[in-house]
């Protein structure tokens, strides 16, 4: 490399042999990255105060007999080579952010107005599958997740755990991903937040989420909770209606269960109906590659494919291959060794267990399972409510809270099981959850307020070898029941009544608590939950509270929620009171007013129905 290539022009006088100087420069040559620069005139003084030794440039050809023995030097601009990348996706946000016509309800992101500092930043990282440097840089150059969420003004009803932020950062940039967290770690919330980001950043405009039927209402509610600004369209109804729904362009998020997937295969595999993202919840449903559901899911035209499951491998490694045929076709083969399969799947799968991510003693994760009644239950419920309300109305001034309470209990029982057929939407959901958690070796407590309900559950859940613990179990046998539940690995489920199982028991070895029906008083529920969630617990405890939609259960829950919310608004930071239903609120459940005059005596010591089990399990 010559001196000029190094960014200099130089001249040597005859008194200083050029060969010597040349050698000197050669030994000090810069690295090859320094490019050639064109010669420039020498100025009398460069901007850094370095005065050249010669005021005038001396051409090489004219150096034959220089008048003085001087050496000239001048800085020259290096031609520094660069690599450039432009990111069109963000360009629209240079000016005011305008929502797309296809996603009309998604509010624009306002310019942030408060300086932020975070103790922890969750950085986005490109997937290994991302090959192009420009694509990888685009991910790396995105703001950290915390700033990305804030800049899009995405609020949360609760502060996500750091591991949940990691999960969002994992999903968001990926075109193929499986979130396989252990049950109860918030896969739903993580997926919703990642979807929300994709929509808000215009990286996606059309998302299809497919889940088991009992979970549709739960997803809908979770979307409302975590991303209330996003419009949701649930694909349901008769064929004509579904066909119309599938083709709705203005619904950025469509939720369907696995059944319409088969019935509407011709529509959703139509290339004209292309989704930016398809998410399969409980994706083990497609583990059988030859099954119709799996075939159709793989055929849905899409840009991104995500799978959510707590049990990516239920029976064999083939299960994982089946899911990967949806995520990244051909990436895994059944003939691979499990070790090789694990290596290849590594970058696509994020799985955390509670023990890994929830280090401090034990977080209590509560989730509301919103259940839609089966058709049989719905009809039985409708009839019972209509007749019941009519009777209450006819009672007139003779109406007492006891009458209302009886109707409430009757309706709550129907919410558990249809009295004629035994159909139970709650049981379907419970069974699905138990399959998952027992497969991972976990144990569960199931609470009900009725012995009869526990009896039915014992029969219907016989494959989980449930034990019972309630007032009907003789006292001298109760310790044996608890010991067997603790020590026998086959005994995964303990059916308990609130009365018998709410206090004085240490069941820390159970990681899951299901409230099959709800008690009147949250304090009693808390006591029941604390049988498992207490010091000494082996890990976090997940509480699932079943709630049937558009029923008396939902109305009671709403009243309690409103009261808690009001309390928290007024006394921010204070713990919620142990809210109970007042007499007026009980009447209000059926839009009835307290009759004028004295109220009939309450069977409880106060004027509330806080601890008033008319048909207790004990």
């Amino acid at each position, binding site marked *: 490399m010559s*001196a000029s290539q*190094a*960014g*200099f022009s130089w001249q040597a006088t005859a008194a200083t042999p050029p060969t010597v100087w040349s050698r000197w*420069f050669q*030994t*000090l*040559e*810069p*690295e090859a*990255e*320094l490019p050639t620069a064109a010669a420039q005139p020498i100025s009398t003084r460069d*901007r*850094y*105060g*370095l005065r050249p030794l010669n005021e005038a440039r001396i051409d090489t050809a004219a150096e034959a007999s220089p008048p003085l023995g001087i050496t000239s*030097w001048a*800085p020259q*601009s*290096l031609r*520094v*080579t*660069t*690599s*450039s*990348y*432009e*990111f069109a*996706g*963000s*360009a629209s*946000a*240079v*000016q005011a*952010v305008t929502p797309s016509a296809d996603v009309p309800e998604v509010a624009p*992101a306002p*310019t*942030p*107005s*408060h*300086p*932020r*500092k*975070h103790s922890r*930043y969750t*950085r986005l990282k490109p997937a290994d599958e991302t090959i192009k*440097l420009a694509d*990888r*840089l*685009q991910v*790396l*150059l*995105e*703001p*950290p997740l915390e*700033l*990305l969420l804030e*800049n*899009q003004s995405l609020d949360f009803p609760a502060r996500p755990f750091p591991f949940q932020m990691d999960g969002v950062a994992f999903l968001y940039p990926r075109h193929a991903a499986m979130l396989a967290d252990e049950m109860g770690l918030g896969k739903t919330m993580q997926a919703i937040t990642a979807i929300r980001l994709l929509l808000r*950043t215009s990286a996606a405009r059309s998302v299809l989420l497919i889940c088991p039927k009992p979970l549709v209402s739960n997803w809908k509610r979770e979307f409302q909770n975590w991303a209330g600004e996003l419009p949701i369209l649930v694909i349901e109804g008769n064929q004509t209606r579904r066909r119309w729904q599938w083709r709705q362009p203005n619904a950025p998020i469509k939720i369907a269960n696995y059944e319409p997937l088969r019935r509407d295969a011709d529509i959703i595999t139509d290339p004209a109906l292309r989704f930016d993202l398809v998410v399969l919840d409980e994706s083990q449903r497609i583990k059988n590659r030859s099954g119709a559901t799996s075939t159709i899911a793989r055929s849905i035209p899409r840009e991104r494919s995500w799978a959510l499951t707590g049990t990516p491998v239920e029976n064999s490694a083939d299960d994982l291959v089946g899911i990967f045929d949806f995520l990244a076709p051909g990436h895994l083969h059944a003939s691979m060794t499990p070790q090789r399969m694990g290596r290849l799947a590594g970058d696509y799968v994020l799985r955390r267990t509670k023990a890994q991510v929830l280090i401090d003693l034990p977080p209590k994760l509560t989730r509301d399972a919103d259940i839609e009644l089966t058709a049989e239950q719905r009809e039985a419920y409708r009839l019972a409510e209509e007749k019941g309300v009519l009777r209450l109305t006819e009672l007139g001034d003779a109406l007492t809270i006891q009458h209302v309470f009886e109707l409430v209990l009757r309706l709550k029982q129907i919410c558990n099981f249809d009295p004629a057929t035994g159909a139970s939407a709650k049981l379907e959901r419970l069974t699905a959850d138990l399959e998952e958690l027992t497969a991972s070796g976990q144990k569960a407590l199931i609470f009900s307020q009725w012995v009869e309900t526990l009896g039915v559950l014992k029969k219907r859940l016989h494959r989980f070898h449930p034990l019972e613990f309630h007032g009907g179990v003789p006292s001298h046998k109760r310790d044996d029941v608890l010991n067997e539940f603790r020590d026998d690995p086959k005994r995964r489920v303990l059916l308990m009544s609130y009365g018998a199982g709410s206090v004085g028991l240490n069941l820390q070895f159970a990681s899951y608590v299901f409230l099959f029906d709800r008690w009147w008083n949250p304090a009693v529920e808390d006591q029941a939950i604390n049988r498992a969630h207490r010091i000494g617990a082996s890990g976090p405890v997940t509480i699932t509270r079943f709630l049937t939609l558009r029923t008396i259960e939902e109305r009671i829950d709403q009243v309690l929620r409103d009261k808690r919310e009001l309390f928290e608004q007024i006394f921010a930071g204070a713990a919620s009171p142990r809210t109970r239903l007042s007499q007026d609120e009980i009447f209000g459940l059926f839009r009835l007013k307290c009759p004028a005059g004295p109220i009939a005596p309450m069977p409880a010591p106060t004027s509330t129905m806080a601890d008033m089990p008319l048909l207790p399990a004990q």
Partner: protein
Amino acid sequence: MPSDSLADLPLVFGFLTVVQQPSVGLVGGYLLLNAQGRPLEFHCTAAVRANRTQEILYGPTLEPYLYGEQIGRTLFQVSKLQPVAIFTDRPAALSAAEHSAAPVWLVLNEAQAPEAEGSPGSATSVDSTASAAAMLRVDAAQTSPAPMHALRCGEHRLACRPADAARGMEDRLEAVVAGFDLAEPFERIRAAIDESQRGAR
């Protein structure tokens, strides 16, 4: 740049840093972000390494020469968008201001931050004898370095050359950068440079 014209510009911020890559040399990175902090353009240089001659002849001015005149100017030239302000975390890169229509501000970390005496948003001059000012001295050839102009802007501590302070941006700077953690984008640039270098290898 006159403040009047800044008002007409979309909110684009430039972030310039230079990374010393072991055994390779200096790599400059220039990231342009929109008001939401999302990337619009990214430019980086190939590795640049001063030879011994340059080190001798430029002496203490070598870094400002390489960071500002060579790397900074080149990166500014290849960018398409015009930022309203450019931020750097490398004092030596302040010399790039001479090649930019937008003012170049140094984002000071805790160790660098001089004790600005004014209220938020107010400017104070920093004594050249202070250690912080010595760190910001960019022209060693001057017998009496010009004092840096320091600015407290919300939670940020910024400094610039006096000539940049006269560009009229200062009074609006706090409002403009209120939504930014100004130190954070440099981490992105460094990660992107690392990725680029890995790709090059």
